[in-house]
């Protein structure tokens, strides 16, 4: 066995030399190696793109102290664990796994690499060396709902969504709450695509909603197709994840956008300093995790002012998108007046608020 090992080592060394990768002179302090696992291609807009922007921002901020690498389009399931394991066994000290389906693989690998730090986005399982982080996207959704409520003429809003998981349902509900806060007659219709990234299906879904009379389209999927559909059909669009204005120059009103750079920089700095600790972070507008994209030309000044005012209230903690009374579709009170929904209830949200048309798939 020992012989085999040394032979392997020799072959490895030979290979490295042949590959021109033999390490050069030793550097004073080795950079901290940081790995990222992405669920979709980085592309130029969307969920993964924003995470990659965060990675780049962290690299710019920390310079030679860190060295990052990523693998994109890693399917959730058996393949994810292999990639996470690869990073951990290759000497990566901090690993970001940026999709819900990576939760169990992350926890499994973390058990075998107790000295490696793991950061899992959107999940709920933590360990001594596993943190979780998420953003309060619903705060941004609430604000974009206000814009939609002010801009719609038909009072029908189309929402293209991927899967009925709590995260997505929370977005739909927050959007609807914002919408109804300025326009009691407006309603939201949802079409499910059963895929995070399927531009063809997403476009079809958007066109269906438009043909049913929707004059504002928003999305919780990963492509820009619904925005492009809105641009082509002459209705308004509200983006998600990224500023999608270049895909709908006329149609794009604003977008609820994600910003991970600050968090990534802080976590990496802690890891470099040896101060990393397992945490559960859920940052919102006040922490800079969620922002609104610049308003489109069509949004009038009074709407802009209103949204900015609400944004300031949310940041100050004066306004909660799920402050009571919150009613479900049947009109039943879910959150009583004077109270706000707890984080736990928001994390497991499985009902539609009033104003959403149709039945939530169970």
């Amino acid at each position, binding site marked *: 066995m020992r012989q085999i090992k040394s032979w*392997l080592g020799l*072959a*490895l060394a030979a*290979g*490295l030399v*042949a*590959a*021109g*990768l033999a390490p050069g002179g030793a550097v004073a302090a080795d950079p901290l190696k940081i*790995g990222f696992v992405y669920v979709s*291609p*980085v592309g130029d807009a969307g969920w993964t793109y924003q995470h990659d922007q965060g990675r780049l921002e962290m690299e710019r901020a920390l310079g030679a102290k860190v060295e990052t*690498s*990523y*693998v*994109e*389009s*890693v*399917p*959730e*399931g*058996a*393949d994810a*664990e*292999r*990639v996470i*394991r*690869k*990073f951990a*066994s*290759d000497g990566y000290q901090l690993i970001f796994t940026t999709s*819900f*389906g990576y939760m*169990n693989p992350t926890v*499994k690998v973390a058990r*075998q690499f107790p000295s490696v730090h793991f950061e899992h986005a959107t999940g*709920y399982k933590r360990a001594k060396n596993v943190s979780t982080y998420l953003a309060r996207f619903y705060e941004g959704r609430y604000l974009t709902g206000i814009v939609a409520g002010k801009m719609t003429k038909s009072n029908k809003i189309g929402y293209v969504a991927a*899967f*009925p*998981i*709590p995260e997505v349902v929370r977005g739909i509900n927050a959007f609807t709450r914002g919408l109804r806060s300025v326009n009691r007659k407006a309603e939201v219709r949802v079409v499910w695509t*059963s895929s995070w990234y399927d531009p063809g299906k997403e476009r079809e879904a958007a066109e269906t909603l438009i043909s049913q009379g929707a004059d504002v389209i928003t999305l919780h999927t990963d492509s820009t197709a619904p925005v492009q559909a809105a641009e082509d059909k002459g209705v308004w669009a509200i983006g998600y994840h990224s500023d999608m204005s270049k895909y709908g120059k006329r149609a794009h009103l604003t977008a609820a956008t994600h910003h991970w750079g600050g968090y990534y920089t802080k976590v990496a700095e802690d890891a470099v300093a040896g101060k990393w600790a397992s945490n559960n972070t859920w940052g919102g507008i006040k922490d800079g995790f969620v922002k609104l994209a610049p308003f489109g030309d069509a949004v009038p000044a009074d709407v802009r002012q209103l949204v900015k005012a609400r944004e300031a209230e949310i940041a100050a903690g004066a306004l909660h998108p799920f402050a009571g009374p919150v009613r479900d579709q049947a009109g039943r009170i879910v959150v009583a007046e004077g109270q706000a929904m707890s984080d736990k209830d928001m*994390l*497991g*949200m*499985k009902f539609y608020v009033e104003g959403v048309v149709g039945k939530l*798939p*169970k």
Partner: protein
Amino acid sequence: MQLKIEPRREISRNLLYLTPFLAVLLTVVTGFVLFMLMGYDPFAAIYHFFVSPLLSLYGLSELMVKAAPLIIIGVGLAIGFRANVWNIGAEGQLTIGAIASGAVALAFWGDTGLWVLPLMCIAGVLGGMLYASIPAFLKTRFGVNEILTSLMLTYVATLFLSTLVYGPLKDPAGFNFPQSRMFTDAALLGVVFDGTRMHTGTIFALLIAVAVWVLMTFTIIGFQVRVVGQAPAAARFAGFSRNTIIWFGLLVSGGLAGLAGTFEVAGPIGQLIPVITPGYGFTAIIVAFLGRLHPLGIILSGFLMALSYIGGENAQVEVGLPQAVTGVFQGLLLFFLLASDFLVRYRVRVVRLVTETAS
């Protein structure tokens, strides 16, 4: 002038076995140029694609994990393909097998009996067979094309799995997220080497390939399958039942796909999730043909295909190749494999047409 493609009378056996290596060589050369043009270190890229995964226990064990479902499904499909029974729906049969065995695991959640795992395997195989029997029945009874039915049933299976993990099989303590509970130890396959993910199912994959080879070479039904495929008229004349072969081809490939699904959920995944397979059922079709529909060839092609995935990830991590480029590289490999295969079997001749002389 015109190009004409015609089958070669004599197919060189040596060439037939040599082409895969030739194809790999051509891929390496083309990839080298491609990586260089794109500004990546071509030596490093190719080294991390083809060599470095083979140099560690970690890489080899992951290769086994990735190749196992491809081999199990591939050898099953090859049986049918040899008899011109085109089961394109292994992906769906895998999913149903995973559902059946996963349901067993969840029904006996927390039970420590040694019988849980065998019961899951039986459920998985039966699930896959049952699902493959639908196209078999439609084909033998009504003459419905099995390519269409088996393919379309794949989507039904995937949606059925979604329905279950969003509904009755959802983890009660899982914040309403669509996945089942994690299986308990009695429902999980053991690991061959500590610290790796190489589960016992990977060993079974190799045993199954050998068993199928024995089946196809030394048994009457294996002989019948081959005759029906190669000389349908002779098979009819000899009184071999075409329907028996259709049922046989679909049931065996469906059962094996179901078993592969069982190994996935009882092995690396350990629970039911909305998507069990990254396309193993479809990739296995390519694996079966690359392996010349021969079980031992399929073992090799299964490993080659697995290597192309793992190498692709490796190259992303180590050299920073974007995933799209590794995808192109995988495509090149298939392109050269299929093209050289084609040129071994056919030749392209330049034919001069008489009418063209005027120009």
